[in-house]
């Protein structure tokens, strides 16, 4: 029925491009640099990459606060600062000793006052006598306190 039409259509197969066009076009196309996609990004790869990235972020976010609170990381290694801290520490120790000695001296002074006060009748005689015994041998004039005070003040 359509044989004549189909026969004429097949005659169109004689159409061909010019050889010069083929040569130029082919050369230009094949000279174009093409980067093959060696890593075909597929959805499973993307999904696993996202999981891995999220895991790393989660680990970092959980461990970072602990690291920041560590005293080791917060310490300064500056030599001058260390020396200053040591000097401050020494002075603090000395000041504490002075305070302690002063406290003791005040206590002793109070005790002696009470003992020498014969008019105070409410004090227990036995307690006073035991305190007096412990005071024997003490150097009531504390030269060490005086030396430390001089160091701090001057």
């Amino acid at each position, binding site marked *: 029925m*359509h044989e004549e*039409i*189909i026969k*004429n*259509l*097949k*005659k*169109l*197969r*004689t*159409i*061909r*491009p*010019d050889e010069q*066009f*083929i040569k130029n*076009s*082919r050369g*230009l*196309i*094949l000279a*174009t640099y*093409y*980067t*093959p*996609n060696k890593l*075909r990004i597929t959805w499973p790869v993307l999904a696993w990459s996202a999981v891995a990235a999220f895991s790393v972020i989660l680990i970092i976010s959980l461990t970072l606060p602990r690291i920041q609170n560590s005293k080791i990381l917060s310490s300064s290694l500056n030599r001058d600062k260390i020396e200053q801290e040591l000097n401050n520490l020494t002075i603090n120790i000395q000041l504490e000793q002075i305070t302690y000695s002063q406290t003791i001296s005040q206590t002793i002074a109070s005790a002696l006052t009470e003992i020498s006060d014969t008019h105070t009748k409410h004090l227990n005689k036995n307690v006073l006598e035991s305190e007096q015994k412990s005071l024997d041998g003490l150097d009531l004039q504390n030269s060490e306190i005086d030396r430390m005070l001089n160091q701090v003040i001057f």
Partner: protein
Amino acid sequence: MKDETEIIKKAINGENAAFGRLYDEYLPRIYRFVLLKTGRKADAEDLTHQIFMNAWQNISRYEFRGFPFSSWLYRIANNAVIDYYRTWKNFKPIEAAEEILTESSDNERFDEQMDLKIIKTAINKLEPDQQNVLIMKFVDDLSNKEIAEALEKSEGAVRVIQHRALKQLKNIVNNPELKEA
């Protein structure tokens, strides 16, 4: 094409020599298709070059689905022709037929040349889908399955289009006004 699958794989891996073989195999058919659709030799050469350049740059997107490489190429070619129609508003099919006639062969007998002129003019009067099916089927010798893949239609639709296109073409060719032109 023999061992086409292996050649395509090599091309996907970047071997331009492999793509060169694909170019040699399919260039005449794609050029013919584009020339019959556009009717202008210079435009057909430009479009054909763009089609193969596009195919080379995007060959990594080609998927093996049991259809020949030609179906994928024809799809690219059809889209390129559609874009071409959008930009070309002063398309003159009759002049184009004469241009094709001159370029086809100088040794053809006069009556055969007239037959070619008539058939080409008649094709240009068909709907685009009808043109595509007739050219792919009878000029480039593709199967209905390959045509369906290229045009993204069912095989049944391709057969219906083919039947209607042949009937319409016959009516156009037998039109006395066309024969006298």
